[in-house]
């Protein structure tokens, strides 16, 4: 099946999943309280993240055809997202500064004078359009990689910490081995092997990224399994699996949330580094920054590419960190403030 069909399916599943989670969470006082608290304290950050998610969704729902492509015969058979359609035909044949009325560097005259709020890039693409396109890539990298790395770290960390002995030795050996390789080189090697697709990059980032969190989980589990409520649960006849699910895992949730947030922003940033090395994901902000790097030496200076991409990146990461911080304050009962 074509990529765009999958993308639509994923969007549908995500929306359904979110609906389900909201439906379930509405009945749980803890989550409604958490969210109302978050909303009260970090409204702006939540809205910013919401905006990024919306843009990413607009960029994910795609279908073929339905547009007048003019002479362009290739685009006729390519799927285009809602976002693509909104910015259709905004291609220029020259550089232009934000809100420019005239062309830059002697290209052809502008087709849409003054319409490029953030200007255009070297090959005449609208910078606003590119910056918005980057949101989907960033969320995909941050989200997918965390979704791969965190369960991996939890699985290995909890089994090592809880069961100890042989299992712990094996897990620790794997962790030490991974940690002893230079991260960037390992990343590059993995991407060379796996290919340069978005999923492959996520995979590579996950494989190099789970070790740190795994170590934290292992240590925390060591601590938790000695606590009296775990002995009490055992004395009540709870199975090992039950203890892990009901007593260990919930007490790691605040770590999961903090890690998810830090990892998310860290991953979006490391993708930028990968792009700088030329092995990033197509259409990411990192790639935009990489391409705009050389433009900084032009005269007059071309600043709008790098600033747009940088601000888009900065905005997302700042908002995510704010929200993560607030979530930690609310969800960790050890820092629980009296809300009632």
């Amino acid at each position: 099946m074509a990529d765009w069909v999958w993308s639509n399916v994923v969007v549908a599943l995500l929306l359904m999943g979110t609906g389900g989670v909201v439906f379930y969470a509405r009945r749980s006082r803890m989550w409604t309280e958490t969210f109302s608290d978050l909303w009260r304290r970090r409204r702006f950050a939540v809205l910013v993240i919401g905006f990024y998610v919306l843009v990413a969704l607009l960029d994910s729902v795609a279908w073929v055809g339905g547009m007048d492509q003019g002479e362009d015969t290739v685009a006729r058979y390519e799927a285009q997202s809602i976002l693509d359609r909104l910015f259709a035909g905004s291609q220029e044949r020259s550089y232009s500064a934000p809100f420019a009325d005239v062309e830059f560097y002697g290209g052809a005259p502008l087709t849409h004078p003054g319409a490029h709020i953030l200007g255009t890039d070297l090959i005449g693409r609208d910078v606003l359009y590119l910056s918005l396109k980057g949101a989907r890539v960033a969320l995909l990298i941050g989200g997918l990689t965390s979704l791969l790395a965190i369960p991996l770290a939890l699985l290995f960390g909890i089994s090592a910490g809880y069961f100890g002995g042989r299992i712990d030795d094996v897990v620790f050996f794997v962790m030490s081995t991974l940690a002893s390789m230079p991260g960037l080189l390992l990343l590059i090697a993995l991407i060379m092997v796996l290919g340069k697709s978005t999923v492959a990059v996520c995979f590579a980032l996950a494989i190099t990224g789970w070790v740190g969190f795994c170590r934290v989980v292992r240590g925390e589990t060591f601590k938790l399994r000695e606590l009296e409520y775990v002995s009490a649960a055992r004395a009540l006849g709870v199975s090992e699996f039950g203890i892990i699910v009901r007593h260990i895992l919930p007490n790691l949730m605040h770590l999961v949330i903090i890690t998810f947030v830090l990892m998310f922003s860290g991953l979006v940033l490391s993708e930028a580094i990968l792009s700088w090395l030329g092995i990033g994901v197509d259409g990411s902000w990192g790639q935009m920054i990489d391409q705009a790097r050389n433009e900084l030496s032009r005269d007059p200076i071309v600043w709008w590419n790098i600033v747009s991409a940088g601000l888009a990146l900065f905005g997302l990461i700042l908002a995510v960190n704010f929200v993560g911080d607030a979530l930690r304050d609310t969800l960790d009962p050890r820092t629980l403030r009296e809300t009632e």
Partner: protein
Amino acid sequence: MTALLEVKGLTARFPGPGEGLPIVDGVDFHIDSGEVLALVGESGCGKSMTALSLMRLLPKPGRIASGRVRLGDEEVLSMSVNAMRRVRGHRMAMIFQEPMTSLNPVVRVGKQVMEAIRLHEDVSRSAARLRSLELFSEVGIPDPEARLDAYPHQLSGGLKQRVMIAMALSTRPELLIADEPTTALDVTIQAQIVRLLRDLQRDRGMSILLITHDLGVVNELSDRVAVMYAGRIVETGSRQDIFKRPRHPYTRGLLRSNPALAVPGERLPEIQGVVPSPVEWPQGCRFSTRCSEVFEPCRIDVPQTTNLGEGHRCDCHGVTSSTNSGDGA
């Protein structure tokens, strides 16, 4: 009356020289149904390890080396892991010393009690909640409805211990093992918890193995007492026997050093010396290094159990020789 729990020659070892250190060394006792047995002794004498051995929850690297534990008509030590899990909480429940850390801090207490119920019984969520509510009022938690939704950190130590008791009672166990249930609480709360345990025991007719070093609690709650020293039970008997007619020098020392019996203005009598650590346990009678009535055989042979009648038993060379000579005369 048949014994609900019968423990014979229970030995638990931790890694050490030779076969390992016998932290619990050949312990024998039994608990009848509806009876409260107090297991008394100084810190480190193996009380808690005995209790954990009964539940087969001995912390690693400890292991049960030998002995038999019979609960009802089942042999606990030879049960499969799954069968054991059904016994825990269902037939034998345990409450711990530290109510502060015995509840999961991120789960509402009501939910924790409900889970304990649903673990052993196939009941619906709402039925379990109703049962938890009943249990909460039964253990004297004020405003139980609201307390069900509280997090552990919102409750006081006494309330937490009540929640622990409610949880332990949730499946109507035949035997409740209370490991120093009052030690971490302040005195007024201790009295309340002791009264609560006594009332619950009477109402439900369950057996309690009470582990404590607080003789006041023992006097208030127990039917029979077992005194433990350095991994062995040195004297067993009814409460009256132990408190009124103690025979073992260690028991007598313990009772003498009870602050409640102190004469004002006089120095509180104490047992000389400290409990020897398991690596330096003496040969023969383990109390011989601190005993004021020690004589030659004490340092050589392990004392035999002397039956003093009506379940009063004592492991002491002094008692053995005096009883024998008494018989002879």
